[in-house]
């Protein structure tokens, strides 16, 4: 295909769009709604991921050490655990830190503090707080710890207790809830995305249907199928680009307003901040979807009028 033909397709496509009037406007509006739905799905996905991660971050397993365990033994265990691929973070809390934190938490509870003073010394254990990359990994981490020789010093276990067993039910339910939420979310996203894409397809198909007589004439004056199809595809791509640009533009005030109104609703998820930090991704998805939808829908819609 020569440059001259390509240039003509672009010029004709642009003219068709510009002269399309109400049909072009209706197609842009429908495509804008479609892309806005796709855009909002990106935000929902971001919000869901943020919320699930916040919940996951609150789950951990603590290993409490006997008061006689030395700090070096505990730090040796810490470095062993950190080597595990499923571990995200291990935090060491010394007995002294635990006592300070306890006193801080009960600063207004004089009775408890008095009881603590009467005990004399520090009754609290040093501990390691282990956070896994995924809540489902806790079981394997605990299994590793129970089998690990690092937890023994001179044949005696230095571990007082691991709180996994009492938290297991909660962790398992949470893991299940996270997976279910992800799957349901994915299904909802897919349904909305497919529905909106079908609406855009139907609109473009309708727009091309209004040109079917024109297409028949083009064929009779000897235009090749590619030459007929080209301007319609260009028209579709322009519709997609314009619609994506409209959505990207509208998202600035919408996310700013929504961010102000919903601050603190979703565990600190800031919609406006998410938009500015993920602008590149959202731009690519919306622009890509707009161009692909416009081009593909036009191509498929026009094909039925180009037979023979």
């Amino acid at each position: 295909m020569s440059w001259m033909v390509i240039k003509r397709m672009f010029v004709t496509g642009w003219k068709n769009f510009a002269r399309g009037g109400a049909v072009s406007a209706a197609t842009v509006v429908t495509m804008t709604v479609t892309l806005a739905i796709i855009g909002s799905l990106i935000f929902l996905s971001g919000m869901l991921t943020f919320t699930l991660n916040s919940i996951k971050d609150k789950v951990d397993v603590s290993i409490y050490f006997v008061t006689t365990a030395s700090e070096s033994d505990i730090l040796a265990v810490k470095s062993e655990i950190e080597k595990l691929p499923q571990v995200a973070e291990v935090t060491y809390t010394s007995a002294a830190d635990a006592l300070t934190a306890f006193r801080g938490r009960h600063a207004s509870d004089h009775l408890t503090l008095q009881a603590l003073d009467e005990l004399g010394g520090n009754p609290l254990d040093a501990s390691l707080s282990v956070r896994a990359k995924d809540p489902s990994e806790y079981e394997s981490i605990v299994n590793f710890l129970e089998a690990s020789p690092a937890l023994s010093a001179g044949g005696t276990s230095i571990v007082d207790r691991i709180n996994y067993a009492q938290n297991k039910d909660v962790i398992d339910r949470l893991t299940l809830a996270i997976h279910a939420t992800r799957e349901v979310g994915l299904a909802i996203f897919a349904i909305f995305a497919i529905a909106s894409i079908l609406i855009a397809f139907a609109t473009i198909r309708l727009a091309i249907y209004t040109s079917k007589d024109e297409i028949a004439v083009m064929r009779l004056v000897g235009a090749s199928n590619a030459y007929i199809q080209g301007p319609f595809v260009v028209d579709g791509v322009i519709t997609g680009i314009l619609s994506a640009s409209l959505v990207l533009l509208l998202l600035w005030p919408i996310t700013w307003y929504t961010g102000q109104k919903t601050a603190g609703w979703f565990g600190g998820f800031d919609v406006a901040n998410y938009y500015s930090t993920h602008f590149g991704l959202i731009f690519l998805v919306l622009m890509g979807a707009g161009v692909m939808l416009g081009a593909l829908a036009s191509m498929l819609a026009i094909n039925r009028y180009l037979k023979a």
Partner: protein
Amino acid sequence: MIYFDKVTKRYGDTAALEEVTFSVAPKEFVSIVGHSGAGKTTLLKLLLAEERPTGGVVFFESIDINDLPNSALHHYRRKIGMVFQDFRLIPNKTAYENIAFAMEAAGRSDEEIASDVPYILELVNLADKAKHFPDQLSGGEKQRIAIGRAIINQPELVVADEPTGNLDPINTYEVVEILKKINELGTTVLITTHNKGVVDAIGKRVVTIDRGRIVRDDSDGKYIL
């Protein structure tokens, strides 16, 4: 130039054309007449390969049109200029662009288009309406633009399907005069009509079709039905 050899076209059980045999020589002007539904438009559709015959063969310059693959049809159609009763101009293109489109489709250069289209607009007396869209033109003007589009690529054959069907007598006369002039310049012209005045004004060969069959073929331009 054109040869229909025992051509039959059926739509289900209904025969639109039945064993039609006739030929058109180069530079001839042939009027095909007949009542509505006689098979005139079907005959043109077969010639343009818009439809395929149920039986028989249609030749254009010794090419069997049935043998043409779909991918080659647009090349074939560029040899024929087509004029329709309902004009069939592209609504969102100006008069200039409607004529230029046929040249663009044939792969002609921008320079050729810039020189030929104004010439054709002059020829059909519509140079001052170049930037008008079809809905800003009268019926006669639309048909003259359609004729301009049909002849812009200097086709060997111009086919006109009821070209005066939607026109008043004055515009009918103008269109007939343009078609006669095109024929005098060496282009073969084939028109369908049921307008006796048009046939008499042309005064050339008349082929009469009735219920899908050729019933008369007169070289002296008489309209008898």
